[in-house]
């Protein structure tokens, strides 16, 4: 309703846009997203097509390579580049959906637990304690054995495991914000609890949530790779980075390329998400920003 020349949110967005880590991470992620989207057109071969006459070929720049397979082939003669490109689709799909799902579930529980406190808070907190005492990968495997294979089952498993990351961190942030006088002031201005949560608490925890979301996406990529490595993630006919690593494991001494390319893909993707995460944290977190301003004042 009021004229808004430089809202704190816009200032934060401007700071983020100038942060080198955010810029670098965003460029990498955009490239990745484009490649994943255009996979059917970019991939030189069908990722599942086998050519048993040209197995374990090295990449183009080494001797004995084949021009049809720019990054070589695996034990069944499948094109490594095409499989990497299609594997990126799985990685992005899981990263976005799983992290968003975990954020929605985790943040909602954190808001309710942190704001209302009391019995609700104790319930949620004990739940987190129990949840986090399971090794996450083992928990994921148990869940997937029950749910069966499939990309969306992986998403569900990650949401069910990783919501605790959000709840734990955001709950403590809500506890801090809740003690601010402006929360009481909003109540005294007649606002309902829902209005207070929506208008006063949520905007305060949003920067932290966005940061966590970005980092969680990187974690989801790793978890998905681990699960597909142990063969519990995608259907057998889908190429995922973890599957590529698992396939190349037996032949890694003869042909290290098969393992090097998917590992690099995972590394770059996770790095990009983490760069964005730390950069956003630096530019969105009011405390860090004011600390820097104070130091120069």
């Amino acid at each position, binding site marked *: *309703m*009021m*004229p*808004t*020349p*430089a*809202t*704190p*949110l816009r200032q934060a967005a401007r700071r983020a846009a100038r942060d080198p880590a955010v810029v670098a991470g965003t460029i990498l992620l955009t490239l990745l997203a484009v490649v994943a989207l255009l996979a059917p057109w970019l991939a030189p071969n069908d990722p599942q097509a086998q050519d048993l006459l040209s197995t374990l070929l090295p990449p183009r720049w080494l001797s004995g390579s084949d021009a049809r397979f720019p990054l070589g082939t695996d034990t069944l003669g499948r094109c490594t580049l095409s499989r990497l490109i299609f594997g990126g689709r799985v990685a992005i799909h899981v990263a976005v959906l799983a992290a968003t799902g975990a954020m929605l579930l985790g943040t909602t529980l954190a808001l309710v637990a942190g704001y209302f406190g009391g019995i609700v808070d104790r319930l949620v907190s004990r739940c987190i304690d129990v949840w986090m005492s399971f090794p996450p990968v083992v928990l994921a495997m148990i869940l997937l054995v029950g749910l069966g294979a499939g990309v969306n089952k992986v998403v569900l498993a990650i949401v069910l495991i990783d919501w605790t990351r959000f709840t734990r961190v955001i709950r403590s942030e809500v506890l801090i914000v809740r003690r*601010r*006088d*402006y929360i*009481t*002031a*909003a109540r*005294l*201005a*007649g*606002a*309902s609890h829902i*209005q207070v949560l929506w*208008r*006063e608490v949520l*905007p*305060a925890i949003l920067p932290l949530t966005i940061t966590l979301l970005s980092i969680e996406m990187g974690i989801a990529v790793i978890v998905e790779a681990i699960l597909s490595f142990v063969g519990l993630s995608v259907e057998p006919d889908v190429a995922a980075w973890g599957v590529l690593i698992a396939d190349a494991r037996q032949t890694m001494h003869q042909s290290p390329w098969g393992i090097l390319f998917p590992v690099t893909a995972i590394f770059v993707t996770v790095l990009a998400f983490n760069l964005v995460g730390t950069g956003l944290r630096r530019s969105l977190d*009011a405390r860090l920003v*004011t600390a820097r301003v104070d*130091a*120069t*004042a």
Partner: protein
Amino acid sequence: MILSVRGLTVSAPIDGQTVEILRDIDFDIGAGRVLGLVGESGAGKSMIGHIIARTQPAGFAVSRGSLVYDGCDLAHADARTLRALLGDRITFIPQEPLSALNPLRSIGVHCDEHLARLDVPRSDRRRRSVAALSKVRLADPERLLDRYPFELSGGMSQRVLIALAFASNPALVIADEPTTALDVSTQATIANLIRRMQRDHGTALLFITHDLRLAAHVADDVMVLYAGELVERGPARRVLETPQHPYTRALKAAIPSLRGPIRRLLALPEHMPGPAQLARLPGCRFAPRCPVRDATCAGAISALREIAPRHVVRAKQACEATMPERPPVDRMTVSAAAAPLLTVHSVSKTYNGTRDWRGRLPPPVEAVKKVSLTLRPGEILGVVGESGSGKSTLARLVMGLETATQGSITLEGEDITRTSARTRSIRLAAMQLVFQDPQSALNPRRSVGSIVTQGMEAQGSRFTPEQRLARARELLAETGLPPDLLARYPSQLSGGQKQRVNIGRALCITPRIMIADEIVSGLDVSVQAQILNLLLDLRERRGIAVLFVSHDLAVVRYICSRLIVMWRGEVVESGEIEAVFASPQHPFTRELLAAAPPDDLGAPWPRP
């Protein structure tokens, strides 16, 4: 001279420009003398101590002038020389005693470390520690050595730090607001203790404070800083009784007094310029707020002028023009027969605590014990007490943020003791709370316009954006804020502006009662005067009743018509202001009155 400062100028790069944070400071402190350094926050008074200790923020450096201690220029001394002096010949007493002591180390370890640095042999340290602690009149120093800082009160911690500061028999002690973080009654004893130790050791003392009256009582000479500029320096009594610089005169006129007729406080407009604004003030830095300025002030820096022996002022002849008249304040006593708006009858609040894992309860804490009060329309009722007296809990009980364990609270005939949806709506239509800390009370992500009309927002679609905008404009005007603040955010406001926004929000629903919980305690004197005058105006214009919670008797005397004094959760005294100030009945009230430094510099203080 122990310390001789000449033309000290400290510069820092701010927003790409070099700003002189301190400009041309001159002073001397002789052996055994006390210099009071007075200024509001942002005046640069702590910067002098920081420069001596080399703890100034990064980028701040001495660009001109000298700080000579015993033939050695501290501004340019090498680190080794400085380290040998600091903590031994030159020592410090900090503002926050509790954060100056390491909570993981006992008092004995603190003393031991300090004495080790002074090359006291190990065998002698314990005896010396005990001797130092008993000198500051700490009871049972032997046992105190084994205790930890968190087991000590603020006053006791400060005594320990004073003992440490004087342990090396230093030539110069720098005390930076040593009493500000303490309760009123403790303040007097600590100030007195510092003065006594200083006399016993014949030490030179630089006493930094924001309180002109306190400085005048503790110090031999007083120096006043404004925006990094030395505006006046002279014998303490002369500076307080006949200040010459317009700022010192304004400062004196902004302090509520404990005795004599009550005149309207002089509230200077705006606030002290911050570092970024200093670059735009090449001339007299006080000119924009000066009541007697003329066209030439903004461009010229006056020289320090000696107007009497040892009394110097940075002002022209023209600055001695008379200040604005201060009319007497009409206290508007409300007749006792008027029907009360709010009645609190014998209310108690007990905190039972939570059971531990074996199901045992801690002893209950009685925060408020059988408190009764009435508030009549258009009346400002003061609630006075120290920290822990239950005065804030009382305010929260009335506001419905806590529920009373006993007694009843009645608002315009309706019983609102219990909290329910009905009592909540009755309360919110008639009462609003103004918070102590405007920093915490304003959502940093909301614009000023959105904050002040928060009360309308809660009612959903009943108001159009245009109605809210119009109301926001009204509220800004009413609280004396310029309309262009509407779109600003709290981080862009000064402390005084924030507190006005805070008050504006409370006024949004036109309440009949305002509950003000220590709303001026974090503010500087000149800003405090603005807020107090605003409250008086609001009372006059709107007939609003105020429950004014404060620890400061002088402030309460200035704006309240009646007061109650709380001590350990109970009301120990209540009555009309004049009656209570003329003959306080309860020992605690008398103690409170004696603790404040009196206006009359001839009066002995603290009273023996």
